[in-house]
């Protein structure tokens, strides 16, 4: 952050506040830090890793960025499910590149989370033990090739609607990661749309496949914006901190308004009989979301929760000997070599 007051706080850590009772001026300092932080947020300045920040702000960001990272890597699964069956070499290349991008997004986001003082291993452990979540959308199965297109169009579309405002998020490293991620996501979204368009204009069987996929992914995509505003526990604070810029319902409405004309140009329908333009509001009205299903999936009872987590755990456990080997090799060769490149087990893998 750039304000003079905020700069004076640079280099301090949140846990300094714990010593408050030992130092007569500490309480006053913390209040000053808080004031500087609030002023920086109010002035739309970026908070950077070395700046003082409230413990709760740090914790919220760790939770949100980690779960975002987890969503990228769990989200590889439903699409990777079709890599080996992609129906043309061009589509196969596009899908492989997309899944690779998702792994890359996971890497950016874990790095952003690490600037807040947590480690990737610790976060992965929380994912694998179910203590941190990932987006509930990835607990739905990809049953046909058209699902790959529906994920691109609807799921990536919803993600972009959610994430573009995050490019202006108050925490600098997260905002910057989102700028890169959003560029790639909008590319994926267009590819998904184009995939569905090819199916929609193809044979009757292909058209039916596309419609079926949209029917299955529409409602879960709307759920990606989170619970309705009156049931969203983190929203108010996140908006005050400018981590979030718009409410869940606002973004959901924006997404519906974007999708309706796109569905029409795709030649596909959206599975909602209540969907219609409301002249007065200047928005589309749409039917009620099945929040019971949403909470069920969130609690672990969706169609693929078990499978997704099991595959993540298995990949991690079966890869343990590989990571140990890399660490052992690096340790053996650390002595006598120049430069920091061989000092940790992860650097070799990072280089690769």
């Amino acid at each position: 952050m750039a304000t003079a007051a905020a700069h004076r706080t640079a280099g301090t850590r949140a846990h300094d506040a714990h010593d408050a009772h030992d130092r007569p001026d500490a309480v006053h300092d913390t209040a000053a830090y808080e004031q500087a932080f609030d002023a920086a947020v109010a002035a739309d300045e970026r908070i950077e890793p070395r700046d003082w920040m409230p413990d709760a702000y740090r914790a919220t960001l760790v939770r949100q960025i980690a779960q975002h990272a987890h969503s990228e890597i769990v989200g590889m699964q439903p699409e990777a499910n079709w890599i080996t069956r992609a129906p043309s070499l061009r589509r196969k290349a596009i899908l492989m590149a997309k899944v690779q991008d998702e792994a890359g997004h996971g890497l950016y986001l874990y790095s952003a989370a690490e600037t807040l003082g947590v480690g990737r291993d610790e976060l992965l452990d929380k994912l694998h033990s179910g203590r941190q979540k990932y987006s509930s959308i990835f607990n739905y199965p990809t049953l046909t090739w058209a699902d790959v297109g529906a994920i691109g169009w609807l799921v990536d579309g919803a993600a972009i609607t959610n994430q573009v405002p995050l490019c202006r998020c108050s925490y600098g490293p997260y905002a910057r990661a989102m700028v890169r991620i959003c560029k790639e996501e909008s590319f994926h979204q267009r590819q998904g749309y184009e995939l569905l368009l090819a199916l929609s204009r193809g044979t009757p069987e292909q058209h039916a496949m596309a419609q079926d996929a949209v029917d299955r992914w529409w409602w879960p995509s709307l759920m990606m914006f989170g619970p309705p505003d009156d049931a969203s526990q983190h929203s108010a604070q996140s908006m005050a901190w400018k981590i979030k810029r718009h409410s869940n319902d606002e973004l959901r409405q924006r997404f519906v308004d974007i999708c309706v004309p796109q569905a029409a140009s795709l030649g596909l329908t959206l599975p909602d009989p209540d969907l219609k333009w409301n002249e007065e509001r200047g928005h589309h009205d749409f039917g009620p979301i099945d929040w019971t299903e949403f909470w069920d999936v969130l609690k672990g009872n969706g169609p693929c929760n078990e499978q997704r987590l099991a595959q993540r755990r298995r990949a991690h456990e079966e890869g343990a000997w590989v990571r140990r080997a890399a660490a052992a090799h690096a340790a053996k060769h650390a002595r006598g070599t120049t430069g920091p490149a061989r000092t940790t087990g992860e650097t070799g893998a990072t280089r690769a």
Partner: protein
Amino acid sequence: MTADVPDAPTAALTPAALALGDDALVLSHRLGEWAGHAPVLEEEVALANIALDLLGQARILLSMAGDEDELAYLREERAFRNVQLVEQPNGDFAHTIARQLYFSAYQHLLYAALAAGDGPFAPLAAKAVKEVAYHRDHAEQWTLRLGDGTDVSHERMQRACDALWRYTGELFQPVQGLDADWAGMEAAWLETVGDVLRRATLTVPEGPRSGAWTAGAGRQGLHTEPFGRMLAEMQHLHRSHPGASW
């Protein structure tokens, strides 16, 4: 859809284009099976990256021989011309790395030779040899880490190198239409691979370099059992919708 096709008459090129194209196509497919299963996130990126490079090569090569999708999706097992090495199942990470080491060292030598010549494959080889240099480096670095890592990784890497050794002789059977010094490449390959294995504290396998089939079987459409199942998965959707475009 078709990738960029170099301007060249196809009929005379077909056997060689199919051999090289099928190698790249099949290995790319195997690497694609790793997506979401890699031991570390960086390897998700690396393996997908290599798979994409190979798929790109395959598309150009198959397009030199005809329609890439018809060739990939509508030929049966007996018509594929890839070496048996690339169709071997992934196994554990060491097995995948050993396959990559053997194949990328071979492919690098071959593409370097083709790039240096003025034959019809020179333009493709000139671009691909840069990609393959990266693949070879990746495989070499992991061979060193696994071979000279822990006791467990050493043993797994040795086992993988031994198991795949029998598929390496076929790499140097002359391919119709490719003008190359096959014996010279084989000697260079043995030296390169031997050097990596020794630096990785591994023993260079001593077993035969071809199985019960005559070496060159894959190039004649004689494959191993797992290959048919791989093709069944790869071709199923395309074959279920004859004539459709995607």
